[in-house]
């Protein structure tokens, strides 16, 4: 949050919006396969050994490492655009709210996966529909950032 405040202070609103737009364009091109570049991620799975810590601390550490990205694969560029958007456009409170939303989004996946049942059925269904889901989420994120930018500049 402090870093975002430092970034935002010297830059006028229109330039910050332009930077976020540039990041969004780059990720969009990547999502459509027009360009290819690696985004930072720690490509390691959280080991099962974390569950040696017990029924509470084990899942807590698992969720902490996965949720914060310390150890996880990141299959989408959307979180990176979101992070840049937060750094350049969001207030500290908005940053916290966005983080809350991120947790809710991840939780929705987890709950849906469990409630869908089967052994990996939800994951297979995700894979089968990944292209349309990815496009819908990208479109939604683009529109949402456009609304935020419009409110910022108006």
């Amino acid at each position, binding site marked *: 949050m402090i870093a975002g405040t430092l970034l935002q202070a010297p830059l006028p609103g229109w330039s910050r919006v332009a930077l976020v737009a540039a990041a969004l364009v780059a990720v969009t091109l990547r999502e459509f396969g027009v360009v290819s570049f690696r985004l930072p991620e720690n490509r390691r799975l959280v080991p099962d050994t974390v569950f040696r810590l017990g029924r509470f601390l084990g899942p807590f550490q698992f969720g902490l490492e996965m949720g914060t990205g310390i150890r*996880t694969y990141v299959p989408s560029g959307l979180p990176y655009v979101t992070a840049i958007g937060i750094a350049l456009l*969001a207030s500290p409170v908005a940053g916290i709210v966005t983080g*809350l939303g991120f947790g809710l989004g*991840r939780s*929705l996946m987890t709950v*849906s996966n469990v409630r869908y049942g089967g052994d990996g059925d939800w994951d297979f269904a995700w894979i089968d529909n990944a292209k349309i889901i990815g496009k819908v989420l990208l479109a939604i*994120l683009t529109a949402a950032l456009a609304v*935020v930018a419009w409110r910022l500049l108006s």
Partner: protein
Amino acid sequence: MADVTMTRTRWLWHPLTATAVVAGVAVAAMTAAATGAGSWSVAAVWLAIGGVAGYATSGST
């Protein structure tokens, strides 16, 4: 009986259904913010942005 109920409601938890939920919440927030609602609507849009980003990482489990 429980299995039948599970089958009938399974579509509620399908990835496309969850995607529709995320999209619906985001559209509602954007509509409020775009029509000039208070600052709470901008916060709602940020919440939706975070939700989209979090849900988009679903393939990483």
